[in-house]
């Protein structure tokens, strides 16, 4: 309940934050909404010597549209994404995903950037961000770079972010008219994290699946794109049989998590069933 002592800094600009990060290196942690970090600190599972609170950094909040792309500031809260008219109109799966995270109080405070950077293997955002093929803007002392979501999640709780970098923006291309999405999740009943969460982004041409992206969280150490499912369905008719056959591949080639809440076999089953249902949901 009581964290270890730390030095606290509240920079107001990205540059200031980066300078602090360079100065304190591995000893420092970035504090965004705090809803992953503070619980870990209270249990003393995490004991950073320095906390860099970026809440007061200008320009990292909110959603805007520019050239067919939604630009989401890293400090945008789950609640803001859930309730934003722009998001609900342009990329409703983002709002839908946000609404599945934690509870109201957590969504009020937790941020998309914080969640993605923390990379919990059962967090919701990674599935959807992968399915939307988002770009992530990262700044560091060496400058700015943009990487694909598919290159972002590396290992358990480990991302492509270097120690001196901060995720600043998430870029999501506004999908075409004939594209629909669906995020479907089975909650671990205690924590609310995903036992399995499946995000599907589907582009239809008539009854044919023109393009499909499936992001899955909760099933493996690292959230992943179910590429076997995608290739099994792309270019085919969206019949119940085709969808079911493709969804059977949802856990192919994946190292599946096992814990007291769900066995490996059960998670594998959930991945398939939820993938099928999410595709059906997106296709209907």
């Amino acid at each position, binding site marked *: *309940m*009581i964290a*270890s*002592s730390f030095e606290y800094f509240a920079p107001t600009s990205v540059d200031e934050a980066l300078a602090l990060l360079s100065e304190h290196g591995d000893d420092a942690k970035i504090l965004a909404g705090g809803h992953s970090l503070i619980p870990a600190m209270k*249990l*003393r599972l995490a004991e950073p010597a320095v906390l860099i609170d970026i809440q007061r950094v200008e320009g990292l909040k909110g959603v805007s549209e520019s050239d067919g792309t939604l630009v989401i500031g890293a400090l945008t809260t789950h609640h803001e994404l859930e309730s934003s008219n722009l998001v609900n109109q342009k990329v409703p799966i983002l709002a839908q995903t946000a609404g599945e995270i934690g509870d109201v109080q957590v969504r009020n405070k937790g941020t998309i950037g914080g969640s993605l950077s923390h990379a919990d293997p059962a967090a919701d955002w990674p599935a959807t961000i992968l399915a939307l093929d988002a770009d992530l803007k990262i700044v560091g002392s060496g400058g700015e770079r943009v990487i694909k979501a598919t290159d972002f999640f590396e290992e358990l709780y480990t991302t492509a972010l270097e120690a001196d970098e901060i995720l600043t923006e998430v870029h999501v291309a506004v999908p075409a008219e004939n594209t629909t999405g669906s995020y479907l999740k*089975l909650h671990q*009943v*205690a*924590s609310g994290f995903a*036992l399995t969460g499946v995000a599907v982004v589907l582009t239809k041409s008539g009854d044919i699946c023109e393009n499909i992206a499936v992001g899955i969280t909760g099933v493996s150490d690292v959230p992943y794109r179910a590429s076997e499912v995608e290739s099994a369905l792309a270019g085919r008719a969206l019949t119940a049989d085709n969808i079911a056959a493709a969804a059977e591949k949802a856990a192919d080639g994946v190292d599946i998590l096992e814990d*007291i*809440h*769900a*066995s490996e*076999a*059960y998670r594998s*089953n*959930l991945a398939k*069933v*939820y993938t099928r249902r999410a595709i059906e949901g997106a296709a209907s």
Partner: protein
Amino acid sequence: MATMAGPSRLIGAPIKRREDPRLVQGLSHYVDDIKLVNTLHCTFLRSDYAHADIKSIDTEAAENLSGVVKVITGSDIAGKVGSIPCAAEIEGLKVPDHPALAVGRVRFVGEPIAAVVATDPYVARDALDLIEVEYDELPAVVDLDAAIESDSTVIYDEFDDNIAFTMPLDAGDVDAAFAEADHVVSQRFVNQRLIPNSIEPRGVLAEYLPGEGTLTVWSSTQVPHHLKTILSLLLDLPEQLVRVIAPEVGGGFGSKLNVYPEEAVVAYLATQLRKPVKWIEKRSEGFTTTIHGRDQVDYVDMAVKNDGTITALRAKLLANMGAYHQLLTPIIPVLTYLMMPGAYKIPNIKLELIGVFTNKMATDAYRGAGRPEATHIIERMVDLAAQKLGMDAKEIRFKNFPQPDEFPLEMATGVTYDSGNYQMSFNKALDTVDYASLRARQAELRGQGRYMGIGIATYAEICGMGPSVGVAGGGWESSTVRIERTGKVTVLTGVSPHGQGQETSFAQIVADEYGISIDDIVIIHGDTGRQPQGIGTFGSRATAVGGAALIIATQQVKEKMAQIAAHMLEANADDLVFEDGNIFVQGSPDSAVTFADVAATAHVAVNLPPEVEPGLEATHFFEPSNFTYPFGAHISIVEVDPETGEIDLQRYVAVDDCGNIINPLLVDGQVHGGIAQGLGQAMYEGAVYDENGQLLTGSFMDYAIPKATQVPRFETEHTTTPSPVNPLGVKGVGEAGTIASSPCLVNAVVDALSPFGITDIDMPMTPNRVWQAIQDAQ
């Protein structure tokens, strides 16, 4: 009774709670809200091991931390703080020494080893990380079946095995009944370990005044009087100088019906340091070291005839005590043993109850305490028998209920059910759900490949904990009624409510009896300095025993008032009526004296009838003649998703008979909360230890208590069969919902999955477990 009460205005009415204004504004005081000047903060270092010898404890670095006042270990308090007591008296019971801080050996994860006192709770926490403990790990005893095998590690050197006690029963002729049975059904049940998790954690604040020699302890407890007595014994202080206050208590569910090491250590530290000392439990501590509930493995056989008559029951009950006995640990499974027949007349019963030590936290009273286990066993067995006979789950129950005119009914287990009409409550439940059409709907859905299930649990339970012969530490309750000089009424009760609402229901009882406004009555509880004697609130006893004590004390004072009023009115006391704040001769309300005038007269004491002493106060100790036996019928409707194992709970109907009802609003609240906790056991909750005795469900991240989205709307109904064992005719309702709901839900899910050939499923029925059961059946 000489005097007449006015028309009953409040008993039976849904009066809103008088407790609530302070609570909804955040203005009440739980232990942690009480701030005394110069308070020191205590925190405990706890064992990471389930079973280990302590080689050394190095506290030096912690002691040197700025702000740390004191660090103590088990050896520092040996001989100064007594062993944590167990009140159970069971023949042959092994009672191990239970030091407040471990000495030499630890026996469960979370066992306290050292206490740190600091000027600031943050510093106290920092100090914990500076204490070095060296352990020699020992094999941990975790599995109940394995613990009683001859090759098991034995937890106590002084005992031969891990068996804490055995209790046999052989009533009737069980062997003959099984020999003559048309069918025998057998099943092993696991009644999983639960963690109570009241939302307010435990907490203690103790202050010692050396001049006066008085120790005052504020504790989040259900039993302040027991705590007072036991603390005086543990610390060797005169009992009269120890005062325990249970301030606002944020839920207990049995978990605070106890005396814990932390209470003893904090009180001891206060006497030594001569400053107030406070400890507030962290949730993670609550998970490991506040008592757990249930944890039985039961092997059961039932003999039935072709017509559905149950002729015999045979069972071996393994009950997990954990590593030490807490206050009532061994008693809890005895309630299972006593209530094995449930709502059915079963003449032949053979039982073997075995209490088993393991390297886990102690079990003890958790809402329902032994009866949910019994009800689970009998209600599941009845369904299994019906399934085997091809009989409807409804019919087999009617077949085996006793008739209403058979009560009081002595059962084969030795208890006597006070009153009952099981047919009435069950019929009401069946009518409410329209049972026949439900079965038709189920058949229709099965045709569509959908798995709907109807679950029934009819139950009888034991509560109203008393008489004293059946309750460790006493089964009576005490109440004092005092009418102040101004005519305001003070009630002092020995019960110690922590959410049950007796400040309201008890005031209803008194207001009706005196014909005065409820606003003129104050109910004081939870303070041994103000109400000198009492037992406490547990086992759905507060109204059945404490309310009974109250009504009698109320009437005793009323008789005296009537004498004084009769003297004032020059009338006969027998003719007086108490109504609307006045006392008058029946039929002559115009020539009345006010209730307040009579109170003033009693205290001014210059115009009293001869032989009448001044003052208006009476104390009554009520000793009930028997327990009470509430009953009822719960029905639930579920649909199971066979692909994922998810359960959709669509409807839950509860018909409970708790005797007379004082306040239906409070009764519904108790039933709702009870069902939610039973539902938690059925669907979500379960303490999981690994093979080394590590608790894997040590936080709300892994241990699920039901959330608002995870429970349905409950439909509650009642029938009323008064109890003959107390003057209010009440039975108690705090646990009924918990007792009936878990078997009701398991029966529903098993019913839904019966097309797969599934006959039983363990709790909690998580999606994974349900899905796995379907896989295994296919």
